[in-house]
């Protein structure tokens, strides 16, 4: 059964159940992925997945249910379950659907071609070949993946919204394993783009070099010292605490930014933007998970918290407009409030000047265990780290097996400099584009 047919069945069933406010959301994803280990085809996966989510408002409450089965029986069960769930809810905020006829941003999806099996196998083979000659310490345990995926999203509701959107992505993943005979280390990189247009040799070289640079790493000494977070480390840090910007979390007392709109929450060097159309992101978004138009907005302007992120319900409760940040990962995810690409505005210093300003401290490239070692509500963190010692204003020895501890909201205030170039280290939603950031007042715990 296709979506059109299923939509008709669900609509008829909803009307029969006397529902006046409802919405059907559908995603369908086709993807193919090839993975190669040491130049040999190891696995090939092709998938057709997706499903439909139905939401309805009954007695002011929003009930929902989803299914991957598209059949007459499934349509009936979907509507009835969503209604029962609505009747169980006790949340006080009013629920809303987006009104049809809104003006949407003039944005077009990035169109990557759907790649066939041969092109993907070739790309993974080329990537493995590039890894093989990338570094003198490279091993024969490297792997590469090539993938292509296309995601179609549709949203229709009883208020006249009828939207659809397609995102496509081609990407190559390179995993380098290096060894100096005593220990192994690995690193990987994901590059979005048509594989033939990517400089795989250059990507393999930098990935392998990054892994090799960490061989022989010692442990950082325990100290309170300045820390530079690389763009990749900032990506981990900011995504971990991004939930604090949700107005819904603030209302529930689950964000330290509750009631702070208009107040100084960061160093005046900090300007943080949420951008649904960030040029380097392969996932531009025209409408959000409720069907509201998306837009760019400054969350923090020179240290002042400008706005939190809102969906329709949180905006209504606060007497504001939605910021278009109702987010759905897929048909099976609840609607939550989330940013798209958070962009930390670059500063004025070159990387060399930033290191010189740091003088003596630690450069952190990798943060681990963010799901456990960080408390998104209080902002406290104590995280496994890897990077380099900074001595005499230069990166010197590699270090690992240490932690960096502090509080995210204090960290924002203690940013003393930013490098002059923002990077987007990983594609995704949410993503973070950030320069390297110098922070004072953190504790490094190692030997």
């Amino acid at each position, binding site marked *: 059964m296709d979506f059109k047919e299923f939509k008709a069945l669900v609509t008829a069933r909803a009307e029969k159940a006397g529902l006046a406010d409802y919405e059907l959301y559908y995603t369908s994803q086709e993807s193919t992925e090839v993975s190669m280990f040491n130049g040999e085809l190891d696995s090939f996966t092709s998938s057709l997945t997706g499903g439909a989510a139905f939401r309805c408002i009954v007695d002011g409450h929003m009930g929902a249910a989803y299914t*991957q089965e598209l059949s007459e029986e499934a349509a009936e069960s979907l509507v009835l379950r969503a209604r029962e769930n609505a009747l169980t809810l006790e949340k006080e905020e009013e629920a809303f659907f987006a009104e049809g006829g809104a003006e949407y941003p003039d944005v077009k999806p990035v169109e990557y071609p759907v790649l066939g099996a041969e092109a993907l196998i070739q790309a993974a083979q080329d990537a493995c070949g590039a890894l093989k000659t990338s570094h003198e310490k490279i091993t024969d345990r490297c792997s590469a993946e090539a993938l292509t995926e296309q995601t179609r999203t549709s949203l229709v509701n009883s208020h006249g919204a009828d939207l659809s959107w397609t995102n496509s992505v081609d990407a190559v993943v390179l995993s380098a394993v290096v060894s100096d005979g005593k220990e192994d280390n690995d690193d990987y990189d994901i590059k979005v783009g048509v594989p033939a247009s990517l400089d795989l040799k250059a990507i393999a070289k930098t990935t392998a070099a990054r892994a090799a640079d960490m061989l022989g790493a010692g442990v950082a000494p325990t100290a309170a010292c300045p820390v530079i977070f690389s763009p990749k480390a900032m990506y981990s840090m900011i995504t971990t605490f991004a939930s604090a910007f949700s107005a819904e979390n603030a209302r529930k007392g689950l964000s330290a930014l509750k009631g702070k709109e208009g107040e100084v929450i960061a160093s005046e060097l900090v300007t943080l933007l949420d951008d649904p159309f960030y040029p380097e992101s392969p996932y531009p978004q025209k409408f959000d998970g409720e069907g509201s138009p998306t837009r760019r907005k400054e969350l923090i302007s020179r240290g002042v918290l400008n706005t939190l992120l809102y969906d329709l319900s949180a905006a209504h409760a606060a007497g504001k407009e939605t910021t278009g940040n109702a987010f759905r990962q897929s048909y099976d995810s609840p609607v939550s409030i989330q940013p798209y690409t958070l962009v930390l505005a670059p500063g004025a210093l070159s990387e060399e000047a930033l290191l010189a300003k740091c003088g003596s401290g630690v450069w952190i490239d990798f943060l681990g265990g963010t799901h456990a070692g960080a408390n998104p509500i209080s*902002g406290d963190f104590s995280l496994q780290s890897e990077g380099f010692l900074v001595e005499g204003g230069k990166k010197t020895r590699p270090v690992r097996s240490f932690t960096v501890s502090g509080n995210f909201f204090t960290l924002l205030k203690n940013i003393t400099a930013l490098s002059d170039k923002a990077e987007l280290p990983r594609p995704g939603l949410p993503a973070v584009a950030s320069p390297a950031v110098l922070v004072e007042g953190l504790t490094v715990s190692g030997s």
Partner: protein
Amino acid sequence: MITRELCAKVLEAAAATGADYAEIFAENSKNHSINMVSGKVDAISDGVVFGAAVRVYKGLRSVMATTVDVSEDGLLRCAKQAAQALGEGKAALDIVLRDRMFANIHPIRTVPSSVPNRDKVEILRTACRGAYAYDKRISQVTGSFLDVDQNILIASTEGIYASDRRVRTRIAVTALAEAKEGGTQTGSCSPGRRMGMEMFEKEVDAEAVGREAARQAVVMSEAGYCPAGVMPVAIGNGFGGVIFHEACGHSLEASSVAFGLSQFTGKLGQKIAGEKVTAYDDGTIPNAWGSLNFDDEGTPTRRSVLIENGVLKNYMIDKFNSRRMGMDPTGSSRRESFAYTPTSRMTNTFIGEGSDDNDAIIASIDNGLYAAAMGGGSVNPTTGEFNFAVREGYMVRKGKICEPVRGASLVGKGSDVILNIDMVGKNLLLAEGMCGASSGSIPTCVGQPMIRVSSITVGGR
């Protein structure tokens, strides 16, 4: 779900280009969760996972195709896609499917997916009330009631045609307490079982779940920051076992061992852990959170000794990686759903009981940390670098447990840390978690009695 005849037809199409193994995994599951915030039902997630995956192997090459269209046409299209991707070749398998009945070692009395919302809400409300009632300093309580009813069917060219119904239930409460110096501290408790609603009669007291979350939050609200440094650490039983899960367990999974990407590759028969360490992966414990009747490739689960008195005895192996390793599969193949390629994963993985008394473990520490409750962690199996968070910690001085400390995490290299386990207690307890890796998020138990690690880096400030 899918008849044996249709399965045979699909497997034949999948193996048409010379596969030496073909398999269908079909699923129809109900996933349900209710969230409560401030004593009110705040959100409900209610869904059906429905689809099938066809896999074929030829030597060390594996192909999987998945679909949400499980009609005969949809499945055959999927099988042909898999066959084509394998390359050219002639059918080499004779397909005969025989019904296989596995013993059900995890009986379920009341399947939660057949129970109305109100019954679950009532239990959740009791749990959240338990947290609020514990102490006035509790400022916020969130809770969730989660149940999964997974119906699966596996058919393979090894002749298996078998189905299973896997039911699991979990309740979780997180409590926030106002800290003295401002801000809030969190406590949580989230027991689960491969059981139905009867879990709340026999095994789990909902109110006590709320109280435990609140107790932890209140203790931590009074705690100062943990000091940083290298020190001996006593790790409490139950979820403390996450240390073994991260520092060692993941590195014993065939998904990294088979590719030479684990620090323990090629170490069978060698001493890799402290002599007092004997560790198991046991998917057969009745109604335990990480248990299964058979794994996601139709191999019965078992109790494997991974490490015996410090010596590495076995790995956790799925069918595909067993080929690369030249070893038998161990009933360890798992996937979140049909949409994920299964691979070797843990079930209930724990350090067995030792001979040390808890008091003796604490008394042996002159200046160190007692990690009474642990949070989650992660590891890079290639380097063995791991981390995990201490949820409830206390300083230990001169053999006595002293003031609580917060914000601690433990980091190190797995192969070093398990060698440094030098005391093992007697109070083995399992605890439930969700483990994430390439084949998705799956329920696993960690566990241990109280142990002592003679030296580990404690991250604090």
